[in-house]
């Protein structure tokens, strides 16, 4: 559960990141604080913070969902999250990127992920956060099991995941 805080300049690829923004990614078992994550992303030289908060829905395909259970390939998940930060910085001039995924049980209405991006002007932060969540869904090794009202369960597959059943090989 230890934090992993890298200045962007420490990454291999030096882009606009080197101007001093920070990437902070983590995978934790605790409830996420949107306030704390926003504060961490905010900077005195930025005028905008855009956030995405993924929350547990109480239903899927008409079935009631009791809770989600998440697990992660912890070090690889953090690595892929940092790669997402790097990619964001290659596309937009953003300042700080904070990306925290919660694992374990996530009850209905609570957050499983919060991504916050700050930038001097708002367009960059808003576009970057949209890209970031899409990219995380496609690349970060985290798994989610839906537990239904009758205690049956199902491992989910992101549509964005290239090797999911949602993308069957043409045959």
């Amino acid at each position, binding site marked *: 559960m230890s934090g992993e805080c890298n200045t962007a300049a420490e990454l291999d690829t030096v882009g606009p990141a080197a101007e001093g923004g920070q990437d902070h990614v983590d995978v934790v078992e605790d409830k996420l604080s949107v306030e704390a994550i926003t504060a961490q992303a905010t900077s005195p030289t930025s005028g905008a913070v855009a956030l995405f908060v993924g929350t547990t829905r109480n239903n899927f395909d008409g079935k009631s969902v009791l809770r989600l259970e998440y*697990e992660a390939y912890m070090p690889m998940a953090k690595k892929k999250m940092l790669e997402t930060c790097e990619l964001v910085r290659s596309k937009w001039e953003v300042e700080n990127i904070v990306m925290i995924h919660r694992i374990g049980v996530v009850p209905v209405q609570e957050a499983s992920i919060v991504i916050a991006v700050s930038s001097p002007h708002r367009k960059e932060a808003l576009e970057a956060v949209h890209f970031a*969540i899409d990219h995380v869904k496609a690349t970060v090794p985290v*798994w989610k099991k839906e537990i239904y009202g009758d205690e049956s369960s199902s491992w989910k597959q992101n549509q964005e995941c290239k090797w999911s*059943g949602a993308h069957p090989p043409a045959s």
Partner: protein
Amino acid sequence: MDRVKVKLLFFAKSREIVGKKEADFEFASCTTSVSILEKLIEEYPELSVIAENVVLSLNEEYLELDNQELTLQAGDELAIIPPISGG
């Protein structure tokens, strides 16, 4: 042919199917990702039900499933990655 011992990691559905989180396993050091998956299914036939929808990772990097030669080294970390669903 050189053989090396690597660490296998199972996650999510593959973990439930195999019934454990990790195992040690010996492979030929010169191999391909397709061959690795075949060997895994020989050892854990239960995995065949998800074989169409997994990828592997080697030392925390995704491995395309193909016939390109790759070299495993002792202590490498090889994970079976079912479709991801984070976010």
